[in-house]
């Protein structure tokens, strides 16, 4: 049967419970929470004076209660070495979520490390080293000495290009400004590491270079804009499941019409109506359904293009809007490139928000409005041929985007996109095309507008200059497959679950790291000199020495020789910013497990050890480069990094952020007045964009079919589209959910949504395990009947440990080494009847129905 906790009563936080500011460390939205902690031997009561909420808890609380907490919001953890009760509950006063919890954030407490309640016991507690044929615990000094000696030796023999690095670039869980500065100062400051990649892609690059090259940072509006827009245009995103409370708390009120008062108040003097929405997605998602429920089908336009053809659709919308005279010519003239101007001059992206890798070079020409328009001119009828979306619907979408309102006022349209575009066909031009549309209609820097990615993790990037990385940056996974590098440092990444061409990557990576393991087995562990020499011998023979820094044992960690335990959000102080650049401090509310340390501090200790080892080897000049890592706390890292190096950082300290609570401020900070950090609600309100001359560029985004190598062949060869993405209750690669009973009970295997006619043809039933296979590899999934799926178009849960979708994603990338996960085709065959572990599952429609 369905998993039940059989909890019938929860401990109550007493009136004197400690309160801590918490920002959910899972998705980009960054909902505000409060953590309440109190000693294990105390409890509050139901009388108002006996509990921290001051509420009568002996009564039934009603809908949207500000005081109720679920069993998943409770745990017992260590705080300063003592057991404490802990409740982590959504904050009703946070403007982001107004007290809402998603099914991910609602489990922050339950997904914390607890000895008393045996949750997340897989967390890493001690440094581990490969010793006598298995991973064994050791001290930080011992582990770091081995890491430093091997790393220094590899650099001595191969130069810094022999050190490969995989490091997340985000905020939120495990990340944040402290993480990126610590690792950044080590690899880009002390060293100039070039062979570096990010957690979800095989190179060091932005996911949205086009918008940045055009002068527009990708997080340029405020969440409130979703409440003010006349139309929301969303492409390749599923916000109900992937940015849940942004959608529920800011989009839905607009679609329901309940933000009308706010529209009248903030935007007087123009006609207002409840919002409309255009959703571009080849799949009918729960987002589409929820929008229809709230706004009525007449206000929801779901355009389902053929997979990978979004660029053509966008170009047709751009063309039609222009031909109808619905562009904002005054805006174009004043704020975008002039005809004949040298439009390819690079944007200054160094201080663009979010701060991101800034490497230069671009695949498509950037130009003025007219040049871009004429080069990309596409009629609705031409677009219908390629996209499969009717010309009539394309015209209708264009009207909803830009046809002037009553009184000839411009429509306010918010444009947004996420992984359907980012991991979709021709990332650069498609990104450019959606920004073209937003620029042409004058919707950037304007209330109710914006052209934004919706985001995955929170952001939290501040690093020294990265220009040495180059553009395109190194395709790190490919170099590793080709035998490149001698040592690999991995920070909060699990390529085995989240990369493309994953099966081949695993095969080669295992082979190379096994070589080193075998060499280590041949030497007594205590003989450090002989050990380092044995490792180096294996490296010279094509082996790879791998160091994994993470909070949990990862799949790639199984191949590693040293594993270093990191602390996560709430176990240390961490700062991040969300999808509207809202920066907050999550305060430490519990102890890290065992000896785990924050990543910034781990980076510092690696630097300290490298300095020592290199100095001992007699290279003082190089050793001196590793000075400046004397940090003891996360606050030290923050003050050295964000405070000194981020734009506006001089106004921001931990104490000031603490005061700003879960609402924080929106970056960039521009001052500190009356005890508050002054932020910036929207970017580009003055029409000054991030280019040298302040004028935004249009992108010459010409359609070139399926762009990444091997995709067109795959489409022609295999029967099924293996589209892929997220599930509401799973966070990222399930690195914590994997040990959460509620989640693994619901999804023991990744689902593959499939039209019943496809199921008939394949002879499979709900819950059956199938193999998905193609030229890149094979993986497994569980059949989920989905009548709304188009025949031949399946959708598989991405990055799930019990069936890695990346196994069947080929190695093809775009010009800037952005992977193309979404355009994957494969064949499907039955492996087994539904196993017992899925017999109790619900396989009904995921769409809410009032009937």
């Amino acid at each position, binding site marked *: 049967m369905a998993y039940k906790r059989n909890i019938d009563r929860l401990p109550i936080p007493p009136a004197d419970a400690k309160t801590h500011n918490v920002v959910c460390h899972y998705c980009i939205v960054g909902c505000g929470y409060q953590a309440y902690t109190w000693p294990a031997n105390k409890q509050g009561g139901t009388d108002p004076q006996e509990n921290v909420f001051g509420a009568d808890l002996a009564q039934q609380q009603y809908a949207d209660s500000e005081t109720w907490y679920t069993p998943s919001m409770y745990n017992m953890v260590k705080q300063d070495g003592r057991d404490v009760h802990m409740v982590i509950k959504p904050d009703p006063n946070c403007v982001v979520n107004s007290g809402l919890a998603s099914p991910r954030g609602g*489990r922050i407490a339950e997904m914390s490390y607890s000895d008393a309640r045996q949750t997340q016991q897989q967390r890493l507690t001690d440094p581990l080293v490969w010793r006598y044929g298995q991973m064994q615990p050791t001290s930080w000094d011992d582990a770091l000495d081995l890491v430093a000696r091997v790393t220094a030796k590899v650099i001595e023999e191969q130069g810094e290009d022999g050190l490969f690095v995989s490091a997340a670039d985000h905020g939120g869980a495990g990340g944040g400004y402290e993480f990126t500065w610590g690792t950044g100062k080590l690899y880009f400051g002390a060293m100039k590491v070039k062979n570096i990649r990010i957690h979800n892609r095989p190179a060091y690059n932005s996911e949205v270079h086009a918008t940045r090259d055009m002068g527009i940072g990708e997080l340029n509006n405020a969440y409130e804009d979703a409440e003010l827009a006349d139309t929301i245009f969303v492409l390749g995103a599923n916000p109900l499941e992937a940015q849940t409370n942004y959608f529920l708390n800011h989009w839905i009120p607009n679609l329901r019409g309940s933000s009308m008062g706010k529209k009248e108040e903030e935007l007087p003097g123009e006609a207002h109506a409840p919002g409309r929405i255009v959703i571009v997605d080849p799949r009918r998602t729960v987002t589409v359904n929820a929008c229809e429920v709230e706004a009525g089908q007449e206000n929801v336009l779901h355009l389902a293009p053929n997979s990978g053809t979004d660029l053509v659709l966008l170009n047709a919308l751009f063309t039609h809007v222009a031909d109808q005279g619905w562009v904002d010519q005054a805006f174009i003239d004043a704020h975008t490139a002039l005809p004949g101007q040298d439009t390819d001059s690079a944007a200054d992206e160094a201080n663009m928000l979010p701060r991101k890798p800034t490497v230069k070079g671009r695949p498509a020409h950037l130009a003025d409005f007219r040049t871009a328009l004429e080069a990309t001119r596409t009629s609705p009828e031409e677009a219908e041929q390629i996209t499969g979306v009717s010309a009539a619907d394309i015209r209708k979408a264009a009207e909803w985007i830009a046809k002037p309102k009553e009184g000839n006022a411009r429509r306010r349209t918010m444009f947004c996109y996420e992984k359907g575009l980012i991991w979709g066909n021709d990332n650069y031009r498609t990104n450019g095309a959606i920004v073209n549309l937003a620029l042409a209609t004058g919707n950037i820097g304007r209330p109710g507008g914006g052209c934004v990615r919706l985001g995955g993790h929170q952001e939290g990037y501040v690093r020294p200059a990265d220009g040495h990385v180059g553009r395109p940056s190194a395709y790190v996974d490919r170099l590793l497959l080709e035998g490149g590098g001698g040592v690999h440092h991995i920070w909060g990444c699990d390529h085995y679950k989240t990369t493309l061409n994953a099966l081949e990557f695993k095969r080669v990576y295992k082979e190379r790291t096994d070589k080193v393991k075998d060499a280590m087995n041949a030497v007594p562990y205590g003989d450090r000199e002989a050990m380092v020499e044995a490792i180096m011998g294996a490296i010279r023979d094509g082996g790879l020495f791998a160091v994994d820094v993470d909070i949990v044992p990862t799949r790639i960690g199984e191949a590693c020789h040293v594993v270093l335990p990191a602390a996560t959000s709430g176990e240390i102080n961490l700062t991040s910013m969300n999808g509207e650049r809202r920066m907050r401090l999550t305060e430490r509310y519990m102890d890290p497990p065992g000896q785990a340390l924050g990543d910034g501090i781990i980076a510092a200790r690696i630097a300290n050890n490298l300095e020592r080892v290199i100095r001992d080897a007699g290279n003082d000049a190089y050793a001196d480069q590793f000075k400046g890592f004397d940090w003891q706390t996360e606050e030290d890292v923050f003050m050295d990094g964000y405070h000194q190096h981020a734009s506006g950082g001089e106004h921001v300290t931990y104490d000031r952020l603490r005061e700003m609570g879960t609402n924080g401020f929106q970056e960039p900070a521009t001052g500190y007045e009356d005890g508050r950090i002054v932020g910036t609600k929207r970017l580009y309100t003055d029409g000054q964009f991030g280019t040298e001359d302040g004028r935004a560029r249009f992108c010459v985004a010409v359609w070139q079919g399926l762009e990444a190598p091997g995709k067109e062949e795959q489409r022609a060869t295999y029967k099924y589209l293996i589209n892929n993405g997220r599930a509401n209750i799973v966070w990222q690669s399930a690195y914590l959910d994997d040990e959460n009973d509620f989640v693994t009970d619901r999804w023991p295997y990744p689902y593959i949504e499939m039209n019943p006619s496809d199921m008939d043809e394949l002879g499979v039933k709900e819950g059956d395990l199938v193999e998905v296979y193609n030229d890149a590899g094979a993986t497994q999934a569980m059949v989920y009947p989905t009548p709304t799926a188009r025949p031949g178009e399946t959708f598989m849960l991405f990055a799930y440990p019990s069936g890695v979708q990346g196994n069947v994603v080929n190695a093809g990338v775009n010009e800037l080494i952005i992977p193309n996960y979404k355009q994957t085709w494969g064949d499907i065959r039955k492996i087994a009847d539904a196993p017992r572990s899925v017999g109790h599952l619900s396989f009904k429609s995921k769409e809410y129905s009032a009937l």
Partner: protein
Amino acid sequence: MPCEKIVDLGRRQFLRGGALSAAGAAAATVMPQQAKARPASARVDYPSNRLANVSELTENEPLYVAYPDDEAQGVLLKLGTRVAEGVGPDGDIVGFSMICPHKGYPLSYSAGDRTFNCPGHYSRFDAEKGGMQTWGQATQNLPQYVLRIDDSGDIYAEGVDELIYGRTSNVL
């Protein structure tokens, strides 16, 4: 969801959470003999409440009830097919809380695919799968009643397997 039928709330449970913790606090500070009072049980004592008779149930038609008290709206359902937790002669009678465990909105029953649906944030729970959240925002599956049927066909609820929304104790 209005309670169309609230029957036989039965013995009310008066040992409230507040009384429990007050007893605990008193024990720490006041008279030693107070500590000799009957120790609190580890779990709440659920009332055994008659909710309906089997004869009142029609297949796939919800019968609205309340349990463990009249503030806790719920439902009895005769599914027509035997399920793991089902009771009655056909093993097909189940009972659930009808308050969404996410934010406390009243659920509605969709007879078409036998799910409970929440108008607040679109969660849905499968009546035929122990209240499993088919899709949604809650971090728990739907609280289900432990049911017993006596020889006369009277249906009694005698427990709940998850915390009901809006309570720190299932029995107030």
